[in-house]
């Protein structure tokens, strides 16, 4: 395998608390001391930032079932373009990833077509129907890194309790889409001033808050990790903050869109603002930002949810939930959080690296010599305009087309191979 030395980078390695100018060597797909390399290709990064590879805890690759919207090939290419070296593939495909066979298909396809690491996630329940526990032990044996019924939420608290207990015995973290079904029923946007003015059915913040509280109780009683996916309301942030202060093993992620947009955007009926959880109020958005800043929320995840333009070009009520996010996550969060002085660049990098790695239970996710050479390289000084036509994703459902942003991904390295290069 080719050897590289990435020279003159600003090296940020959150886990080891490193933020320094330096060189990183790569040999045999792993990080190596530059001095030890025999015949390296020198890549001068000229002050660009190099970090451990970004992990996205929340990606819908749509294959099998909706290859028109995304495939493992196109989704992982989009991930690479966004600086992600690992993506956790949500299991709500068609058919769902609720059996070892489905995980085997995902792993084989990813090995053949994938550009970045695809980390399989298995369903908690069969068909993610929330009724019967899936074969969690077999899923673990097949290689899942976590469990989730994403898109849906187990409503039966006794079943959820059993799933968490059972998952604990196999060491699998739970990633939960927190939503009380009855309170959210029929909703297409956040319940608040704008749903009331637009006459749309709302999804109340309480629908999320209730299930976050339920999960905190279960995590405390069982002593096992429950991660709250796409946290969107202020009250969920407060619950998480208090629970974490008490040492309860709960974590949360925020999406770039919940950090940058609010429900008011929906007044033009653009279905690229329709997602679940919905865009919330400005108060919620600010609370989420505060949660990211104070460490209550330790991961930024995209909830990359591709849909064809046909599927989205319909009445708002009828449009599917979700937007793509892999190729816009870093510039959006850099522009919103770092450029505005809310968090430092190393803090932001941690939300994409050490934070998600810890949630998945990965040890020593860093740039230490000997680690797999998964690297993300970007230019924080680059300003550009987001152009969805240039996306690698099969889909274009983004509300961020035309946005002026700062911080561009320059290069993505997966297992010592350069998989994306925008120099």
């Amino acid at each position, binding site marked *: 395998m080719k050897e590289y030395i990435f020279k003159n980078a600003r090296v940020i390695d959150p886990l080891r608390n490193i933020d320094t100018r330096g060189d990183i060597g790569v040999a045999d797909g792993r990080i190596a001391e530059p001095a030890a390399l025999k015949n390296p290709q020198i890549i001068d990064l000229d002050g660009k930032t190099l970090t451990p590879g970004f992990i996205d805890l929340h990606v819908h690759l749509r294959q099998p079932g909706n290859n028109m919207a995304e495939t493992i090939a196109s989704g992982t290419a989009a991930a690479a373009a966004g600086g992600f070296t690992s993506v956790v593939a949500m299991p709500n495909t068609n058919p769902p990833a609720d059996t070892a066979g489905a995980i085997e298909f995902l792993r084989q396809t990813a090995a053949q077509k994938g550009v970045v690491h695809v980390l399989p996630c298995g369903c908690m329940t069969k068909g993610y129907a929330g009724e019967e526990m899936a074969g969690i032990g077999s899923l673990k044996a097949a290689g899942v890194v976590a469990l989730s019924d994403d898109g849906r939420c187990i409503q039966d608290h006794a079943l959820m309790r059993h799933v968490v207990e059972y998952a604990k015995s196999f060491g699998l973290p739970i990633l939960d889409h927190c939503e009380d079904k009855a309170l959210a029923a029929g909703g297409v946007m956040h319940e608040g001033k704008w749903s009331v003015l637009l006459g*749309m059915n709302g999804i109340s913040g309480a629908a999320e808050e209730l299930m976050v509280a339920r999960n905190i109780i279960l995590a405390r009683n069982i002593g096992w990790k429950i991660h709250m996916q796409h946290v969107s309301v202020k009250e969920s942030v407060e619950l998480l903050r208090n629970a974490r202060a008490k040492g309860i093993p709960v974590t949360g992620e925020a999406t770039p869109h919940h950090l940058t947009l609010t429900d008011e955007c929906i007044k033009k009926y653009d279905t690229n603002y329709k997602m679940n959880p919905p865009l919330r109020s400005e108060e919620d958005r600010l609370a989420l930002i505060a949660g990211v800043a104070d460490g209550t929320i330790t991961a930024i995840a995209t909830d990359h949810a591709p849909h064809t333009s046909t599927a989205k070009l319909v009445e708002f009520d009828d449009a599917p939930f979700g937007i793509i996010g892999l190729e816009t996550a870093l510039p959006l969060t850099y522009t919103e959080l770092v450029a505005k002085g809310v968090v430092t660049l190393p803090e932001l990098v941690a939300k994409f690296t050490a934070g998600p790695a810890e949630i998945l239970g990965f040890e020593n996710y860093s740039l230490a010599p000997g680690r797999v050479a998964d690297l993300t390289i970007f230019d924080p000084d680059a300003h550009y305009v987001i152009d969805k036509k240039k996306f690698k994703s099969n889909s274009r459902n983004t509300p961020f087309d035309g946005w002026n942003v700062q911080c561009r991904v320059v290069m993505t390295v997966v297992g010592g191979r350069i998989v994306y290069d925008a120099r």
Partner: protein
Amino acid sequence: MEWKRKDLLSLYDLTAEEIVFLLDTAEEFKKVSERKVKKVPALRGKTVVNFFVEPSTRTRVSFELAEQRLSADIVNMQAAVSSLRKGETLLDTVRNIEALQVDLVVMRHSAPGAQAFIAKHLSCGVVNAGDGAHSHPTQALLDIFTIREKKGCVKGLNVAIVGDILHSRVARSNIWGLLKLGANVTLAGPATLVPREFEEIGVRVCHNLREAIADADVVNLLRIQHERQAAGFFPSTGEYAKFFGINRETLKWMKPDALIMHPGPINRDVELTSEVADGPNSVILEQVTNGLAVRMAVLFLVAGCVKK
């Protein structure tokens, strides 16, 4: 002023001046229906498609008559016989309609924003005949037309809207129209049907009927649908009538010259008793008459802005 919109989507979009201009134009058209020959050639040679993706009787009939009295050519389409049933998207359906060189599409749809969505993609004019719980601009215009006609002005009047505000496009349109023209708006009904978020745009929210109607110059009663009872918004229409219905007794709480309005169809003995519906304060049937004039004005003005 000069009318410049090819679409009428919601009163939220309009200025006070535009609303007044529409009402003034409607006054002229009201005279047409009072003539022996109830027809003018204003839209001769224009084609209007009435596309109702949600069932409607009174609004559709009112629009049809308005179009006929303006001498337009009319095609009526309903969802049951449209391609939506065969899986064609709404946008494809309306693009096909437009390809037939249609000038105006009058549409009703159950999804909020459906007309705004298609209007963005069409060069013909789009008139919103109701989009879910969002907007029903011609209904609000005819309500405000009736208020202005009876009371002489709108500014400074106290208007109470009573009933199922949460699910009502009539309420949402009236609120914007009335606020823009300077009326004071009170929304009343049980808290399950009257979201307090409306206070954020400067209307009063009230859960006590007496308080709501005591100083009202106009009381607009909205239809209570039985399916809301099944969905748990209130226990029974009987209990609704008891606490929020207008009857002989509760009528006494109002100013003697207050107007009783209702967009129809009325549920007798639920929102109001027959005595009230058919009594001297009621202008319910005049609303229907005025609806025709208002819709003629809307169609005439909007059609004038469609480029061909």
